[in-house]
C-alpha cells in the first residue's frame, strides 16, 4: 500500500502512549530513562518516514466518455 500507512500509525501510537506514561507520576527512574531513549528513537523514525514518503498517482484506465 503506502509507505506511510500502518507502520507510521503504529509508531505514532507508541509515542503517544510513551508520552502519557512519562506524564503520569507512576514511573521509576530506570524505566523513565529507558522510555525516553525509546522515545527519541521513535521521533527519529517518524521524521524519517515523513521525509521519505512520496505520493503516487495512478491514472484510471477507464473511458469516461460514454453515455450514462
Amino acid at each position, binding site marked *: 500500500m503506502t509507505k506511510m500507512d500502518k507502520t507510521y500509525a503504529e509508531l505514532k501510537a507508541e509515542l503517544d502512549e510513551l508520552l502519557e506514561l512519562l506524564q503520569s507520576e507512576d514511573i521509576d527512574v530506570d524505566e523513565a530513562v529507558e522510555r525516553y531513549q525509546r522515545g527519541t528513537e521513535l521521533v527519529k523514525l517518524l521524521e524519517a518516514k*515523513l521525509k521519505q514518503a512520496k505520493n503516487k*498517482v495512478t491514472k484510471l484506465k477507464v473511458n469516461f466518455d460514454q453515455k450514462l
Partner: protein
Amino acid sequence: MNLLPQLSPSEFVTLLNATLEFAYPRVTITGELSNFKVSKNRWIYFDLKDEEASVHFFGTAYTLPTPLEDGMLLRVSGTPRLHPKYGFSVGIQNIELSGQGTIKKAFSLLKAKLQAEGLFDEGRKRFLPYPPESIGLITSSESAAYGDFVKVLDARYGGIKIELADVQVQGEPATTQIVKAIERFNAAGSPPEVLVIIRGGGSADDLQTFSSEIVTRAIVASRIPTLVAIGHEVDVSLSELAADQRASTPSNAAELLVPDKAVIVSQLRDVKTEMSRLVSVILQSERDGLREKFEELSLLVSDQIQAKREWLGQASKLLELVNPQQVLKRGYAVVRQSGKVLRSSHSVKAGQALDITLSDGHIGARVQ
C-alpha cells in the same frame, strides 16, 4: 412533363430524413426558450426562437441540466427529423444554458429546489479523514488545477495513493464524465477514502457542469466523502454547496486535506523536548526524594542526640544532688573511727580518736 420525383407522403418523409441524417446528423441551435412543457415527468417539449423564427424541440426530461423557464437562452444540440405524423422537430441530445442571465436564473431555481430538499444542510456533511491514505481525484490531467493540487500535496505530505479519473471539466461531455467517475469510485472494491473534484476558474458557461442537477446529486449520493474546489468564482457552485468539504482553490484543497509535514516534524521535536523535560522532572523528583530522606534521617539522628543530651543533663543534675561533697557543703560531716565510717553513736567508746571530714577539710577529735 413533370421532372420532379413523384413521392408519397411517407416516401417524402423517409427521403427527407435520410437527407437530414446525411447532411445534418447533428445540429446545435442557440435561442430563447419558449413554450417549455414537461409531460408525465418524462418528456419535454419546447421551442427555441429568435426574432424571426422558431424551431421545435422534443426530448426526454433526462436531458434537462436544471429546471428551465421560458425566456432563458439555451444552446441545444440534437438531430433534426421530420416525424411522419407530428411534423418537424429536433430530437434533443444535449441542453446547455447560454449567457449570464440564463445561467444565473437557472442557478437560482435549481439552488432553491435542492436547498428545499435539504441537500446542502450542514448536518449532512461528513468529516474527511485527516490525512487520507487514498484519494480519488476527478479532474482534467491537463489542467493547471491538477498540477497545482499535486504540487502542493507533494510539498506537504507523502505516502498517499492517488487514483486519477481524467475527465473533461467543462463543455458537453463533462457532466457525464464527472458523474461516471464519481460512480466508478463508489463502486470500487476498495474505494478511496475521499473524492477530490477540482478545476480552475472560468466563465459562468465553463462552470455550468458544477451547478448542474445531475452532478450535484451525484456528489450528494456519493458514499465516499467529497471535497470540491472550483477555482475563484464569485458565486459558489452547487457542487461545492453539496460537497462535504469545500475549498476555494485546488491548492487550498491540498492544504485542507493533509497536514504540513514540516509542522509535524516541528511537533515531533517538541515532543522530544517535552519527554526530555519530563525525565528531568522525574530525576529531579528522585533527587528531591532522596534529599528529603537524608534530611529526615538527619533530623531523627539529631533528635536522638538531643534527647540523649537532655537525659545526660538530667542525670548530671541528679548526680550532683547526691554528690557527697554537696551534702558536706550543707553542713553534714563524715565521721570515721579507725578508718571506718561511723553511722551510729553507739559504735564509739570514750577516748577513741575520731576523724571528722567536713566540706573543706579534716578535724581530729576525741570522744568524750
